[in-house]
């Protein structure tokens, strides 16, 4: 497979908050490129700044420094070209599931006929398994169902890329597995470039093409990048029994438990080399786009 041009380029993205004792740097010099159709996961300890990175990509937080290029165009504000699924589904409680999805659809396809817009919303709601509950209100739906609506809302915008901020963090493990399948199915159909934030190692491995491990905050940066070699479409049972699975899992856990406090940029040895060797440890079906520089 030939390497595709990156659809999202993050260059030296930094976020600092001013405090009386000088700026508190949350994220420093975060570099990452995402190829078209790639599924990348950011993993790291709580409070390491991974959500900050996602929020900057979504345009909900302004980056203090650095730039972001989405589909060849520099962007720094939020827009419906990036569908966002939040940790809490953030459905508007005074609108039904259908109206929640329609709010976005109306906004993006304002010149399409009403019938088409309704069909689009209905289509995505039925794909996520809410065909019978689309006119229910968020308070009548379980958390898992609300998150389904959140996913449908993001996909219905048919965005250039999808941003997921710990989308399954608040769900029980069974619902989580179910929704991961829903997400993968939609992702496969739409070939949508996806950036997801999680702290669940298994979720990261099962879903992504590449896992970006972030060093601990403050001043978090890319600690290590791991390419996940499993072929797609993935079947959970097969992935779990694959001998490489435990190896990858151990690699991630070792990083999170032992090496996450190390910041590559502080080490004297050239860091590009170091991360590169790890990243290329497994042959990946998706082109490994140069990660750190």
């Amino acid at each position, binding site marked *: 497979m030939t390497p595709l041009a990156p659809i999202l380029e993050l260059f030296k993205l930094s976020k600092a908050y001013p405090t009386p004792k000088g700026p508190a740097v949350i994220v420093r010099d975060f570099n990452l490129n995402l190829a078209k159709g790639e599924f990348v996961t950011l993993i790291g300890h709580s409070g390491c700044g991974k959500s900050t990175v996602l929020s900057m990509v*979504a345009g909900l937080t302004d980056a203090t420094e650095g730039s972001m290029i989405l589909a060849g165009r520099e962007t720094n504000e939020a827009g419906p070209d990036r*569908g*966002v699924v939040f940790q809490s589904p*953030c459905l*508007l409680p*005074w609108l039904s599931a259908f109206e929640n999805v329609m*709010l976005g659809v109306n*906004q993006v396809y304002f010149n399409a006929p009403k019938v088409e817009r309704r069909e689009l919303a209905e289509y995505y709601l039925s794909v996520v398994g809410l065909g019978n509950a689309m006119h229910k209100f968020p308070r009548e739906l379980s958390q898992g169902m609300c998150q389904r609506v959140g996913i449908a809302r993001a996909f219905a915008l048919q965005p250039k890329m999808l941003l997921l901020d710990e989308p399954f963090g608040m769900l029980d493990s069974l619902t989580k597995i179910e929704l991961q399948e829903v997400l993968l199915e939609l992702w496969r159909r739409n070939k949508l470039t996806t950036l997801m934030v999680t702290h669940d190692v298994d979720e990261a491995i099962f879903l992504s093409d590449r896992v970006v491990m972030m060093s601990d905050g403050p001043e978090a940066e890319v600690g290590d990048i791991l390419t996940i070699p499993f072929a797609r479409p993935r079947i959970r049972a097969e992935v779990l029994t694959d001998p490489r699975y435990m190896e990858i899992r151990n690699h991630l856990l070792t990083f999170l438990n032992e090496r996450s406090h190390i910041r590559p940029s502080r080490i004297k040895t050239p860091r590009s080399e170091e991360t590169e060797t790890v990243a290329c440890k497994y042959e990946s079906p998706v082109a490994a786009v140069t990660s750190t520089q």
Partner: protein
Amino acid sequence: MKFFYQLKLDAILLPVIALLICLGGWALIAGHGKTTVSVDDWGDKVTKTERFGLSKNLPSPAETWTASKPYIVEPFAKRGELDQGILRFAWLSLKLVAQGYAIALLLGTPIGFFLGLSKNFTRAFDPIIQILRPVSPLAWLPLGMVLFSGLKVVDSTGRTTFGTSDAAALFTIAICAMWPTVLNTAVGVRAVPQDYLNVAKVLKLSKPKTLFKILIPSALPYMFTGFRLSLGIAWLVIVAVEMLIGKPGVGGFLWQQYNANSYAHIILSILTIGFIGYILDRMMSLIEGRFRSA
């Protein structure tokens, strides 16, 4: 004892007991009249009524009832401009309250939104609001009279339909009643979860769309709390206003009856004001509850 609880008698019995205690206390303090008939030096019969008691001019519960009966039995009767059934008076007051309250909401809600949305607006206007808020309606009314002096709307027959005192009354009700709406709306707008605003940002909703689809629905429960408190104040203010400008209504009736020495009607007016205020509050609570659960 168990039977007592099963019937939920306590819910009825306890308020009744409390009511009887209050009535008893009232009867104890109230004065009572004693009519003595004597023959004076010229041989004429003289009837003399003297009042005794702790507060000898306060009518007793029984006297109050006898004196109030015509107003309660015929609540909508109109015997004269200042002699009308009690509900007819209440209706006149309510009409005035409704107008003033409407002005309060129309002014208060947008101000609340500005306060909630803009930190600078809050910084600029909050001190003024905090200073104007505790000012009594009795203080606002004269200012209203000055503000609208000379205002006169005359109908075809030459009768003034809307004059200075009417405008001053509305002004006073509106300016006193709008603060809870202003402050609660501001709190409600500030309390709109960041998540909802993020949704608006991600979808790039326009300003009016964000207002009507996100801000207003989200702040509505707070706004209704403000609306309810405002209505309570508007009803409080109307009595003071009517007393000062002498308009027919419950408050006007109260003041006029005080001047006419029929003290029993003061108590009738107070109870009517209380009852209507309670009903208004219940009504608003019901509406508020509907929005809270939505």
